[in-house]
């Protein structure tokens, strides 16, 4: 249609605006952040002083408070991932293999639409429900129970709620792809439902669960709004980073390397397990 030269020119025209924007606005910002992690702050004026130092990283690694908070954040992210996997499996199984075919599309839409409802509003809704006179305590009271109130448990609950669709969708897709013959063959060979679940279904959805866990894990690691809304006194990495931004940007930058490093490690591990191909 056009010469090779024209082709190149057109490609350059298409690529230049998005690449310039993303490189300048985004990669540039990340570079500034990364550099400032090696700078320091004047403790009187809170101005950033451009003297090279690795003090910030040493503090992140050695100060016990930071370590406790990093570990707590990591545990919360793992707990959220486990809760979401346990919730997503039966729901996705029902959607993909039990519900009548005409209902499937509607169920997928029903599960995914709330993903777009405001994140803040969803966290806020839980704040109201978890309150002293909220719905949860009202439901638990007749059973002689008391809701978790605001705290770490509430954070895990709310984060699991927020990210659940990210886990359901890949698991649903994997279950839908699973050929019926595999299940029939397993039954013909004498396996009961539990054995088929253990040896046929679970191995087939493992990559999908890992793929979903990338979202649940990394979104939880970086969260700081939900924890402020329902976390009570609980602190996560996100809060500490946010509270340092205006006072000590270099420290905040060094701290923000922690979730990024954890996420990159997790992604590498998941990638090695071959789960990202199914995304």
């Amino acid at each position, binding site marked *: 249609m056009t010469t090779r030269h024209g082709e190149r020119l057109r490609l350059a025209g298409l690529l230049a605006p998005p690449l310039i924007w*993303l490189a300048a606005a985004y990669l540039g910002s990340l570079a500034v952040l990364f550099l400032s992690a090696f700078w320091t702050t004047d403790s009187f004026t809170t101005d950033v002083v451009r003297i090279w130092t690795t003090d910030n990283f040493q503090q992140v690694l050695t100060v016990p408070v930071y370590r406790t908070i990093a570990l707590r954040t990591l545990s919360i992210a793992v707990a959220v991932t486990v809760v979401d996997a346990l919730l997503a499996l039966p729901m996705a199984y029902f959607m993909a293999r039990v519900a009548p075919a005409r209902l499937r599309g509607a169920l997928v839409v029903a599960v995914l639409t709330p993903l777009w409802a405001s994140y803040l509003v969803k966290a806020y809704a839980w704040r109201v429900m978890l309150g002293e006179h909220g719905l949860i305590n009202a439901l638990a009271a007749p059973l002689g129970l008391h809701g978790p109130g605001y705290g770490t448990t509430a954070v895990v609950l709310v984060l699991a709620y927020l990210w659940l669709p990210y886990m359901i969708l890949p698991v649903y897709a994997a279950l839908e792809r699973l050929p019926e013959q595999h299940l029939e063959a397993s039954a013909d060979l004498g396996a009961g439902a539990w054995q088929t679940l253990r040896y046929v279904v679970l191995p087939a959805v493992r990559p999908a669960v890992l793929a979903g866990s990338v979202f649940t894990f990394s979104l939880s690691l970086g969260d700081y709004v939900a924890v402020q809304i329902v976390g009570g006194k609980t602190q996560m990495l996100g809060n500490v980073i946010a509270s340092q931004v205006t006072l000590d940007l270099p420290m905040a930058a060094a701290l923000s390397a922690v979730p990024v490093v954890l996420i990159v490690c997790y992604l590498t591990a998941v990638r090695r397990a071959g789960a990202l191909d199914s995304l």
Partner: protein
Amino acid sequence: MRLSRTARAVLGGCMALGLAVVYVPLLLVLLNSFNADRSFAWPPSGFTGEWWRRAWHSAGARDALLTSVQAGLAATAVALVLGSLAAFAVHRHRFFGRQTVSFLVVLPIALPGIVTGIALNAAFRTVLEPLGIGFGLFTVVVGHATFCVVVVFNNVAARLRRLAPGTEEASADLGARPPQTFRYVTLPAVRSALVAGGLLAFALSFDEIVVTTFTAGPGTQTLPIWIYSNLSRPNQAPVVNAVAALLIAVSVLPVYIAQRLSSDAAGGRL
């Protein structure tokens, strides 16, 4: 696998319970916006339209709504241009670093919001402030556009992949010049993907809070920021709740329309 009737019933129960858990909090916000009891104790004590009336007259909420709409429209416009350009480039051409472009587009929402937020904050402080450009609507738009590009990109790229490869060549063979092919073949094919991507970008921008917190500066409040800063004020609670109910409606509606247009339930967010 032949599931017993009990197993099917249990799975169905899980599904119903799951959907209930997903929707009850949202419905509760809608319901509480009419709850006469200002502490939202359960069960509701009476019906009132007072909170909606107050929310409607709240100057802070109105200003915040206006800011949100402005930021959303501007960010969507930028994202539409950049996202579709990138999608066409990646789809039409084979070049070195093609994977990198897709990666670069996804990166702003793949990294935690707080990292994106403070990175932009640090960059604006070091680069823009010396130029006399302070934090405000402009910086919010830059931040939002950066992470909105991905939804437009995903929607348009998915549509281009489905477009039969021969159609554009057929158009050229029939004597259409490239602008004509674009006008009569390519554009009609991607139009609804552009609309869907734009709606989703707007929805994404409209309820974003983390990046906004770090790019808005003290004078600029979007609707989520307004809600957030009023959460801890008990006397504002009913008004906050009414605004939250509005936010649910406003962010879910465009997504519903986008889903109808794009036949992709996740709308390119995943």
